[in-house]
């Protein structure tokens, strides 16, 4: 099948088999930040943005992105560096394998909720598993990032 969609800001026409999942399709197109951690839509590693909404790319057929805007971490390098440096400064990135999916979902959360509190953070990101960090370092990094963003906005005013 032929599909046309935006991948990280570039309009593309691609040939795709009807039964291929978005995760495998994206990795095949070189978006190797997208990781698989399970086959049951439980781990959140494969999270990407489709029309600004977070989706589990393991559970979406590639053909479903026809006409839509798909963003992976390859398309958000600047943002990933900015937030990622807070994660890194906690040492909470650890093995790193869950980071892309987790960080993409953090971006999705911040689009939906301007200033999430700790409970909202835990709820929104509950589907992003991490076996290394015990999560508390991730939460610290988000809270620090939010304070930094707030200070930045305050400075701009």
């Amino acid at each position, binding site marked *: 099948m032929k599909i046309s969609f935006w991948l990280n800001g570039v309009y593309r026409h691609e040939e795709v088999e009807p039964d291929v999942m978005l995760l495998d399709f994206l990795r095949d197109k070189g978006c190797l930040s997208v990781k698989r951690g399970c086959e049951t839509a439980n781990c959140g590693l494969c999270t990407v943005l489709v029309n600004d909404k977070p989706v589990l790319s393991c559970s979406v057929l590639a053909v479903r992105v026809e006409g839509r805007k798909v963003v992976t971490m390859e398309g958000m390098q600047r943002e990933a560096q900015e937030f990622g440096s807070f994660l890194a400064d906690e040492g909470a990135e650890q093995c790193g394998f869950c980071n892309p999916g987790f960080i993409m979902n953090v971006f999705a959360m911040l689009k939906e909720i301007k200033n999430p509190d700790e409970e909202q953070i*835990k709820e929104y990101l509950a589907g992003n598993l991490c076996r290394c960090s015990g999560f508390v370092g991730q939460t610290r990094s988000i809270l620090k990032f939010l304070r930094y963003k707030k200070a930045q906005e305050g400075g701009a005013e």
Partner: protein
Amino acid sequence: MKYVNQPIRKTDAMALVTGKPVYTDDLAPKDCLIVKVLRSPYANAWVEEIKTGNAAQTSGIVCVLTYKDVPKKRFTLAGQTYPELSPYDRLILDRHLRFVGDAVAIVAGETEQAVDKALKRIKVKYRVEAPVLDIHKAKDNPILVHPEDDWEAKVPVGADNKRNLCASNIEEKGDVDALLASCRYTVDYTYRTRPNQQTMMETFRTYCHIDHFGRLNVMSSTQIPFHVKRILGNALDIPASKIRVVKPRIGGGFGAKQTAVCEIYPAIVTWLTKRPSKIVYSRYESMICSSPRHEMEIRVRAGADENGIVKALDVYTLSNGGAYGEHSPTTVGLSGHKSIALYRHTEAYRFAYDVVYTNVQASGAYRGYGATQGIYAVESAVNELAAKMGMDPVKIRELNMPMEGEPLPAYGDCPTAPSCSMDRCLAKAKEMMDWDAKYPFRDMGNGKVRGVGVAMGMQGSSIAGVDVGSAELKLNEDGSYTLGLGCTDMGTGCDTILVQMAADCLDTKMENIVAFGVDTDISPYDSGSYASATTYTTGNAVVQACADLREKICGLGASMLGVDADKVDFDGEYVSYRETADSETSDNCEVVGGREAAGKNEAEDSGTKRVSLKDIAIKGTCGNSRELQVTRTYSSPISPPPFMVGMAEVEVDKETGKTQVVDYVAVVDCGTPINTNLARVQTEGGIAQGIGMALYEDVQYSDKGVIRNNSFMQYKIPSRQDIGDIRVEFECSYEESGPFGAKSIGELVIDTPCPAVADAVYNATGVRVRELPITPEKVAMGILKKEAGEQESNA
């Protein structure tokens, strides 16, 4: 010290947080063969007949292998120093299938679709036999998991395959029965732990290709590159010299990758077909045929005198090795050695164990490595002893805990604790938890009750007299250093912390040192990253390599200055003559190859006779016969234990039994934390994993030996909503034998949650759950039973 004991960002962090392709499956070429394994549906069966014709003829299929196609020499997949204590009980493919998920055939093809199709086309006739699934009935059962005559134990560990015994031993000191009989207070209980999966986010995976010399090149997500080289040599029955193993970034291991779980499959495909191939385990495979924590049943008899001094401990562990013996004879040892040692007044002890073969997936290494199970049992027994005496569980620990210079009973790797601040850990934890206010419980008035619990933990720092760590350090032409390592950073950050150490030793910036590893062709030998060895063992090798290289830099610098090597100092930037500068200075500096002007200026500026590291580095590349490169290897005769105290506050819903850890306090003595951030995150991660083990995680089997928890749907690890506060502090001792005073931390931190949470649940509800995980059902039923008992006694 500029870097050691600081919260330094991991040197690979930015690549990881920006999603760079640095893992095995990111690096494997797109067109390599896909390898998959046909798995046994039966727990104990024999391949009577196997037809592969249709499968092999499937379009895109390159090879289909059965037991007929593999070498007939048995080996072990355990990543251990040779000769391994784990028995040689495996073939790549065997006619005898020993668990549901055991490998029946290997298929390799050009696409995943082709391979999946071919797997379905293999026709197997099985002779199905009754399996051995109950650990209590395994020993001396007429059904043998390993009836074969070529089964071999390389080292005597009390194993006997004709008795389903993978290991067996008794260690004793004193007359434990007599002493227990004389104790005022005794307890005798049996505790059960379940198998747990490590569930690192990156599943098992390996990519292989043949290089220009015809050698098998293996890129694998492994903790044990050098052991993998030997294991594959054994498995393929080829010289290990024909194998090279490379480790890229690893997406977590926790011990799972201390067993070569998946490497043999693509290795044999590539070796036979000479084509590149890869295997990527699904989560399903990682659940049903990997290397989970050993299920253990531990009976503890403990006795204390009238003052609460623990005098005698009798520990018997029955461990479930599963179908193959990887890490089975070794993990069980820690269940006694690292639990009895927590009680320094123990005058007599007995530690006995049996490890049995059963028809379930092979157990393996998982963070804590048996100590976790043993500490859960012994700490729980001591908590029960305290309850019997009416003593605060903190108090009994204050009376009995390990102290610096005091004995560590049953712990052969250090008869006394060389460094220990358990006393400060306990005091700090008590203060942080506000123990006296919260012990034993608080009724929250809404049907919920909060209780607190405490446990101590210890681990080792490397396997004494066995583990080897190495560092190869060289000065490059541009004045930078390369630190070659054989240990494996699997997200833990050893590539960073070892550079921190080196930068301080060499008085240079971390940016000036590149860590490299691991490539078995190039890296210096290292046992691998396990047994909490890396910081301590490889760290010591790094410190020594730095001292040696400094000497060489001074030597070449001194000869450039024309002075004696023992008369110079190196401050990281310059090698300087120790005496006050005289008229010779500028002359000598002018001799320094090609840098007359710079040399002169420096000499004039400082007024001392000196030569820069940059000039020495350049000199090293021109007309020079002195190597600016050193390799140091280190192995420790002792294994100094890190210590910690964990305190859990749980909230139990009395109606439903639902238990949540709302607060966890961990105070750790890991010696000097080399990287304060990474030590903290290691602790937080270990505590969270431990909470999972305490409350949720359980690999369950049906009566046919089929795993019920084969995905994250059924095998629930904690999510961020399940973890309350985790508060970590360090109360450091200084370990004289460690690099910068450091001990280990990686495994220690998983040891306290199980006993601390179990004790907190008891203090909250009066219900003692002696079988993990502590599920709501067990708690609720316990509460009902207790209430019924109380009513009865009231009536």
